[in-house]
């Protein structure tokens, strides 16, 4: 241990920071399995009544499946579009490339609420069947998930040793064939990670859905928001547990997948 190890004050502050980051999630899970109407310490006893309420009541369950469907579709589209764009951004050198990259990453910092309002107004103005429809909401989710795919896949492609692809080309593979046989296989971890990122971002997306959701198509975060505004019923915590598990499972899945691929794809010592 180097003696310039972090000072005690830093450790104490970092502990506070971690507590602030993690405690709300932990508390939500505990509340979901707690007997009473609100959480007490010590907890009053284990109960599945809130989980049951979530599963039997239509309110959150429908929103949960809707969010899942929405995130799944958004992930598929943005992974394909984002991977293609990342490839071009890494490979090409042209004027305005940096500007284009900045535009494509902009939704990360642009206020989601403003973007949602802009899209709603735009859909109303063009009248092409996007106003208050699933397609309109889906396109908005593709837009906000694309930057995460482009950034993650772009980083993986930048690390990719291009001579591997050139070797495939010189062995007789066409550019498309070489991409699918070599480049995509080797960067699969990055693409999978980008897709998972997209899924999680879409699944938890609130800001952009706020104006675009309707009472028939309400993603889970919007449904939770609607009910937290008026009461803090532990059914919300139960819904939260399912959302937390979804995020956790997709993170684990990608971890397992990439580690297996990683071992195969990285022969370097």
């Amino acid at each position, binding site marked *: *241990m*180097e*003696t*310039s190890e972090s000072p005690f004050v830093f450790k104490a502050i970092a502990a506070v920071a971690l507590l602030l980051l993690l405690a709300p999630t932990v508390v939500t899970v505990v509340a979901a399995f707690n007997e009473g109407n609100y959480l007490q310490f010590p907890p009053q006893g284990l109960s599945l009544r809130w989980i049951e309420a979530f599963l039997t009541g239509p309110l959150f369950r429908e929103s949960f499946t809707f969010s899942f469907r929405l995130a799944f579709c958004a992930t598929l589209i943005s992974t394909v579009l984002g991977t293609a764009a990342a490839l071009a951004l890494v490979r090409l050198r042209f004027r305005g490339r940096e500007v284009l990259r900045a535009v494509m990453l902009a939704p990360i910092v642009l206020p989601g609420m403003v973007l949602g309002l802009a899209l709603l107004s735009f859909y109303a103005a063009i009248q092409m069947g996007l106003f208050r429809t699933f397609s309109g909401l889906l396109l908005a989710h593709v837009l906000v998930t694309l930057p995460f795919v482009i950034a993650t896949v772009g980083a993986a492609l930048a690390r990719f040793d291009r001579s591997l692809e050139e070797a495939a080309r010189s062995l007789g593979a066409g550019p498309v064939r070489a991409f699918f046989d070599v480049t995509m296989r080797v960067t699969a971890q990055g693409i999978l990670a980008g897709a998972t990122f997209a899924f999680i971002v879409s699944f938890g997306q609130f800001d952009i859905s706020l104006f675009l959701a309707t009472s028939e198509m309400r993603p889970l975060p919007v449904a939770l928001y609607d009910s937290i505004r008026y009461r803090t019923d532990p059914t919300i915590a139960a819904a939260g547990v399912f959302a937390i598990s979804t995020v956790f499972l997709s993170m684990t899945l990608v971890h397992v997948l990439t580690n297996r691929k990683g071992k195969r794809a990285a022969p370097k010592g």
Partner: protein
Amino acid sequence: MRQVELIGVAKSYGEGPPAVARSDFSVEKGEFFSLLGPSGCGKSTTLRMIAGFVAPSSGTIRLGGEDVTALPPERRAIGIVFQNYAIFPHMTVAQNIGYGLKLRKHDKATIAAAVGRALEQVGLVGYENRSPSQLSGGEQQRVALARVIVLEPRLLLLDEPLSALDKRLRDEMRVWLKRLQHELGITTIYVTHDQDEALSLSDRIAVMSKGVVQQIGTPAEIYERPATRFVADFIGESNLFSCRVEGATGALATVALDDGSKALAPATEAAGRRATLMVRPEHVLIGAADAANRYPATIEEIAYHGAHLRFTARLSPSLIVRGERVNVGGGMPSLGERVTIGWQPESGVLIPDAP
């Protein structure tokens, strides 16, 4: 007078072999002392323990007679030059050099004067307001040196300071560094994996391997009388023959090599012991009419190195000898030629095998 003393200093990190198993050595005032060894041998950890960045697991470090083992780095009055120089990128050259004086609360005029003198010493007059990004590798190194010598430290630590430079600059800096060290008379510990640097710069060298100091001595002692097989192998080229000491007659002993041939060597080991006989290639002669150790051999390989010629000769199916001679013209044996090779018994060194 002993300026630095390490007494039983060791460092281990969790499980696994210790980074430094035991370091015992002392450095005299004004001496240029090198820690030499392959990467991972513990030389850098030793240096960092002296500097105070790593706390030893056990042992004592003394500086000018004072126990500094528990002292934080800023209170040791040691100057260190890092491999990457660590010139603060957000400060000018003058601010870098004056930083230590500023910490010691000297006034601006004193600092400016001292910085000017230091820049003069390292040959960078007029560089005060440059930013580190405008400096070449060699200039950065001079700034790093100026930054520590301006504080007149009790000890100068150099951590592979030449390894980031290209070859020509490295040779130039080596000469310059030695002269500067000599002029200032500053006690210096130099960490390197480059034996040429260590041999040409040092008053004494400690050769390290696997966390253990193998041998401490002057460059000539290290090269000519290596104490362990590792040192013999690591420093310079050598022929190493496993052997058994058979019996001594006066100053010389007869040893039996593994293939059964006999050789004479200085009688430094008792009869019956297993040892390693080391012969440097430059002592291996072709022809060797007057050498006591003479063997018929076949030339297997010849390599031309400009100033030197190197050859490999096979004595028996299991024994080859490498030799080297200065290229001063004259005949060279041809490949496959049957020759007699040999060496003087006194040029061999018997190294005891570790018990």
